[in-house]
């Protein structure tokens, strides 16, 4: 019994619940927001540390042995994801203190944030496929509510697509779980894997068919090609702190789920399923990055790039070699921090200049060079330039791809890296280097601009951005420990037997 495993779920749940109960007092909610995410961060680090030491951490909820009760499982991959979620959560909570309008706080901003995190952590830690569905729904509905907070027209239009397509994905997931339950009579993922390991080869085909349902459902959640439509339709519409949280976490839950089921459960016909995944990865990388090239709005560019980077992560899974999985895990770690940070930077730019439109922006490097540096670090990292975090992420994948002989995929990955750089440089050129526009295209006057660049609230912008930038640098400059972590995590992913034994106590 390891209580650490449950804490990253229960802490945000409890803080969310208490915040809901204190819905009248925004001051309490703000405090709870920072303390709660801070506590989550602490608990997640404790969890990661313990998992690193002990391999797998198991908690049988309600003391009911697996596969009967719900088992929480922390393997290294899950624990890493939890830490990343907590980091993103804590950063956005700080950022929200200054960036979220007071009237939104009245309508449940902080409780929604906590519960979103609870859903995300739940998804990362559960060892039960139906429970995974439940956590998916928790984070999804929390994201629905966060998405519409503000009630702008664009939010509504975006939300309709977001909600509908995600609902479709959930129903698909649920249906797949139902069919899988009918087939195996169990819900515990380790148990499913164990049982599916015993069936004959002729019947493996049926399992593969079911796995396609999971692939499509998680593909939607991960915003993979050709299932990504909800993301560009909506991610640029909510509060930027919310966008950052979404960008960092939501699609990654889909990716996590793909990693989980396609390493643990559906490994019967790898050459078939993972070839499909490889196609998905390549096309996802390409469409995402191409989508961004035509955009001229800060957040839209970032949104499209999420898609292409999802492709990289799936590539790691699709190649299915130890190194490729390391690359996938490493890429996820890098991406969550960097992508969330870029959204935070976009919000800072908006705070300073009142616009997200590249055409209306400019002159920031002249006025505030440090903001430029805070942008460049995550932006160049996103493009995979060394020695930042994204470089190693990309390098591992490319190396794994070349060692596997996946020439086309590697070619696509390289090209996409170049185009990502192009997009980031486009932002850099327009927002920072270009002189601030004057006259009609300028959203604000010079006086208003200089007024905007003052204010104590700005510290709550700089603090999380700088913190995440430092993390990006650390991951890049001291990649070895991170690599070892990813390597161990990937090793566990490739050893379903170890997972099964840890959860069920049987050695398949």
């Amino acid at each position, binding site marked *: *019994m390891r*209580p650490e495993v*449950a804490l990253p779920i*229960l802490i945000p*749940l409890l803080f969310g619940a*208490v915040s809901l*109960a204190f819905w009248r007092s925004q001051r309490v909610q703000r405090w709870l927001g920072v303390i709660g995410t801070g506590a989550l961060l602490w608990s997640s680090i404790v969890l990661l540390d313990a998992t690193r030491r002990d391999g797998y951490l198991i908690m049988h*909820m309600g003391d009911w042995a697996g596969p009967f009760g719900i088992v929480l499982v922390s393997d290294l991959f899950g624990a890493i994801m939890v830490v990343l979620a907590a980091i993103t959560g804590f950063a956005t909570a700080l950022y929200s203190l200054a960036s979220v309008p007071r009237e939104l706080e009245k309508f449940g901003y902080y409780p929604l944030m906590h519960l979103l995190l609870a859903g995300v952590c739940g998804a990362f830690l559960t060892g039960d496929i139906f429970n995974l569905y439940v956590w998916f729904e928790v984070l999804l509905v929390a994201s629905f509510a966060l998405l519409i907070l503000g009630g702008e027209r664009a939010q509504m239009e975006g939300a309709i697509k977001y909600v509908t397509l995600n609902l479709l994905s959930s129903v698909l997931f649920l249906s797949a779980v139902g069919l899988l339950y009918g087939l195996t009579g169990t819900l515990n993922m380790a148990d499913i894997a164990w049982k599916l390991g015993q069936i004959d080869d002729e019947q493996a085909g049926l399992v593969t068919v079911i796995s396609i349902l999971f692939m499509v459902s998680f593909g939607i959640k991960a915003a993979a090609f050709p299932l990504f439509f909800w993301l560009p339709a909506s991610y640029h519409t909510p509060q930027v702190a919310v966008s950052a949280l979404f960008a960092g976490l939501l699609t990654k839950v889909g990716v996590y789920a793909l990693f989980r089921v396609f390493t643990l459960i559906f490994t019967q016909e790898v050459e078939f399923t993972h070839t499909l995944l490889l196609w998905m990865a390549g096309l996802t990388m390409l469409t995402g990055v191409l989508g961004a090239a035509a955009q001229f709005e800060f957040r839209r560019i970032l949104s499209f790039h999420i898609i292409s980077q999802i492709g990289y992560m799936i590539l790691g899974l699709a190649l299915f070699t130890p190194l490729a999985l390391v690359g996938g895990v490493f890429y996820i770690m890098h991406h969550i921090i960097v992508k969330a940070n870029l959204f935070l930077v976009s919000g800072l730019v908006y705070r300073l200049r009142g616009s997200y439109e590249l055409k209306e922006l400019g002159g920031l490097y002249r006025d505030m060079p440090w903001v430029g540096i805070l942008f460049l670090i995550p932006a160049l990292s996103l493009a995979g330039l060394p020695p930042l975090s994204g470089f190693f992420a990309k390098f591992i994948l490319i190396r794994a791809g070349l060692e596997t002989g996946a020439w086309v995929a590697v070619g696509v990955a390289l090209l996409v890296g170049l185009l990502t750089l192009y997009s980031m440089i486009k932002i850099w050129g327009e927002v920072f280097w270009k002189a601030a526009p004057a006259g009609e295209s300028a959203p604000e006057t010079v006086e208003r601009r200089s007024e905007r660049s003052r204010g104590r609230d700005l510290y709550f912008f700089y603090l999380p951005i700088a913190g995440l930038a430092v993390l990006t640098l650390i991951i890049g400059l001291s990649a070895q420990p991170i690599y070892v972590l990813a390597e161990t995590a990937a090793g566990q992913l490739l050893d379903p037997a170890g997972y099964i034994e840890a959860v069920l106590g049987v050695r398949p």
Partner: protein
Amino acid sequence: MKTQMNSLILRTTGHFLLPLLLIFSIFLLLRGHDEPGGGFIAGLVAAAAIALYLFSMGIKSARQVLWVDPRNLFGIGLTLAVLSGVPAIFYGQAFFTSQWWPIYLPPFGTLKLSTPLFFDIGVYLVVVGSVLTIVLTLAEAEG
């Protein structure tokens, strides 16, 4: 426009049915562990009761009869549900391990006080609070 229908028959029936439905919902809540029922079903029945009140007597009466703002209910309910999983940890058991504290009340038999019961009560409160928040907010927006 008012949210209720201007009907004496409906109003009177509402008055009469409300306590009936509420007591029925508590009944469903408490026996759910043994017979069909439980926090969720009970909560829905209670919410239906208030909805009936809303239709027959209007939003103001419905809010009055509810006495608390439904928005308080789900926060409290959720807190209760989460907390009901915590006591086990003090017994060195996993979260949500059920704890039973049977209380013997001579004429009535045994009251099975337990964490699952508190959990179910939490569920009940959340359901009532959520459904009513949705229904009442919508009804208010109409007028």
